[in-house]
């Protein structure tokens, strides 16, 4: 093999190895950081997996938000207003648009006791904006709402 061909072969091998490694790493990273979304009925019915990081969402049920007297632990109930609701526990600061009746997303793990341990609570910046995940859920007319 002449040196020029040899160099070309090296380049091709190098590129193939690089591309292979990139694709493998990308798929791995994608797989590990995929958070599936589950609506309240699937959380309650047990369709949602436990002990793995998922995303859930619903409306914050009126009167369900409870702060502990010490620290920043808080719990609330998310509902679809169609009979499915589940408890969420979270430790930290809630977003500004978090309030009762508001549609929100939580990210974290569902425990085997049916309680969702959230490490992230997301409410959107615009109060008229519904996350696409919750768009199928109709907003109730009366309770809570945005009116102050």
């Amino acid at each position, binding site marked *: 093999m002449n040196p020029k061909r040899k*160099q070309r072969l090296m*380049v091709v091998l190098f590129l193939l190895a*690089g591309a292979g490694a*990139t694709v493998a*790493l*990308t798929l791995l*990273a*994608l797989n*590990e*950081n*995929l*958070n*599936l*979304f589950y609506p309240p009925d699937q959380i309650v019915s047990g369709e949602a997996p436990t002990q793995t*990081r998922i*995303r859930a969402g619903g409306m914050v049920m009126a009167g369900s938000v409870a*702060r502990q*007297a*010490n*620290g*920043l632990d808080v719990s609330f109930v998310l509902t679809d207003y169609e009979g499915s609701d589940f408890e969420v526990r979270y430790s*930290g*600061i*809630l977003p*500004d*648009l978090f309030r009762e009746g508001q549609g929100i*997303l939580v*990210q974290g793990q569902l425990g085997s006791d049916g309680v969702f341990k959230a490490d992230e609570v997301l409410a*959107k*910046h*615009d*109060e*008229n*904006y519904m*996350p*696409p*995940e919750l768009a199928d859920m109709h907003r109730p007319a009366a309770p809570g709402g*945005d*009116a*102050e």
Partner: protein
Amino acid sequence: MIPELGQVSLALAFCLALGITFFGLAGAALRRPVWLGALNSLVIGQFVFMALAFLALTQAFLTDDFSVAYVANNSNSLLPWYYKFSAVWGAHEGSFLLWVLIMAGWTLAVAVRGRHLPGDFLGRVLGVMGLLNIGFLAFLIWTSNPFERLVPMTPADGADLNPLLQDFGLIVHPPMLYMGYVGFSVAFAFAVAALLSGRLDATWARWSRPWSNVAWAFLTLGIGLGSWWAYYELGWGGWWFWDPVENASFMPWLAGTALIHSLAVTEKRGTFKSWTLLLAITTFSLSLLGAFIVRSGVLTSVHAFAVDPTRGLFILAFLVLVVGGSLLLYGLRATTMRSRVGYTLFSREAFLLVNNILLVVAMAVVLLGTLYPLAYEAATGGDKVSIGPPYFNRLFVPLMLLLSVALGLAPLVQWKRTRSDRLRRDLRWMVPGALAAGVGVPLVVSGAVPWQAAAAFGLAVWVLLAHAADLVRRARPGLRRVPLAYWGMSLAHVGFAVTLIGVSMTSVLSVEEDLRMSPGQTSELGYLSVRFDGVSNRQGPNFVAQRGDFLITEGNRQYRLYPEKRRYLARGNVMTEAAISPGLMRDVYMSLGEPLDNGDWAVRMQLKPYVRWIWLGSLIMALGGALAVLDARYRRLRQRFAAPAGAAPAPELSGTPLPGEAR
């Protein structure tokens, strides 16, 4: 009356865009100098009418004309005048009006600055830009009319601008960003014009290079401003979220960065020709994809405008037409290209190829992560999924570190091949220098050496040393002899290193505490001590606020920070206004969470070292891009091509090297 005039202006601009497209493309194809000669006035007219439409909407905002639906939804009589002004682009319709205005502005700039180009080529460029403008204006007029009236149900007052947008950031961030987004349409138009005319040598690259640099500089600035704005305005100290809309601006940036480097190779060496064309098409296509992501509401994002399916469909169709059409043209024409120039493994060409590969892979990683949720939903029939920031960080960080390794070697290698003794002599002191900095600086700053900080700091110094060494070598015949383009390149690379330091140090060394604080309580934050002195009420112009009072002790210095929780009156929404003590070496960032029982508050306090370097770096990068364009080379270019200006094509100019340029 004036909104109707704005409406008419839009319609006239649309007609002129039709004219530009026809006379530009047909005039070049049929060789009609008179048609091409008409372009100039059409382009001026298009810009003038777009400016009139924009002024009409601005006037409606400044005079509180709530009979215009867009004004009623996004303004309020209590709003200060400068926010009324920037509210023009505070939501979907107006921001798209700004987009089209900027597009018309770029078209005008090309027509004016491009007078030295062969007439048929300029005609094709303007024709392609006119075609894009037709699409944008049709979208604006038929799906997003900003002048729609609310008659007779005119509200007494407006619904107010989203409080997050009542900020200096809104005044500057979108115009800069759009200048960048839309600016890449120029490179796109040059590429398509080159494909159409079959003039596929290095000439088009030489012509479009300054344009791409300027667009890139604007986009860099726009992204940097957006990140800075998110940092101080969202209230929680994050500066990048891998949000789909951020990614939408970042993907064209990555592709555009690859483009300006590959344009350099095409211009100087005549290689990478078809690849450069493809990059030019890709970059602008990603700008359009960004517009689709932002304006269709298909992805969960903090930025999303109100959702309207017809808008999404329109942009998608336009996107498919533009991308499909240009790629088809590329497929038909680009195969005929051959370059015969060879280069070795240790040459500048090879390193710029590495740069391009890494940037395009990084772009693909971001693209995959951004669109995967959509594909997943389509494939599974409605199951929803999201991709977390760890995915992006895990892949993006190593890619950028690899890029930095290559960036440190790039100035040391020469076109075609490098003398290995010179390279070895440089490496002999650069490697220990970078290693010493990587270990030494984090050790001095934080007393520990986390490997991420060491890698990033070492690589940043690696890049800086390489550029310093090269500058010294270049400046030997006299500092005056160093061309501006070279200063621009070096400056942009230094900016990259500065951003690298900022990103890595902030990510690794930041201290963050969420806690419950009672009035009078003191808490530690890194080397700071923070005392909470309670909360008082404050009345703002269009909001009421609860103002926290914190006493910070930093070494032997004491100061107070007053973060606020604001409630805006018109819409009743609540916002966190953080208080920041900024500094080159560290930011102290306080935010009020929510009130708890008996006067306690949830509080977030953060110590963020080097966070300013992130934006300082992007500012330096943008300056570098701007400086490169001012290089005398481009002025000479204009003079040289000034003679054959006019309608006659000048094929003999193709591929002629510039004066003083070695081939």
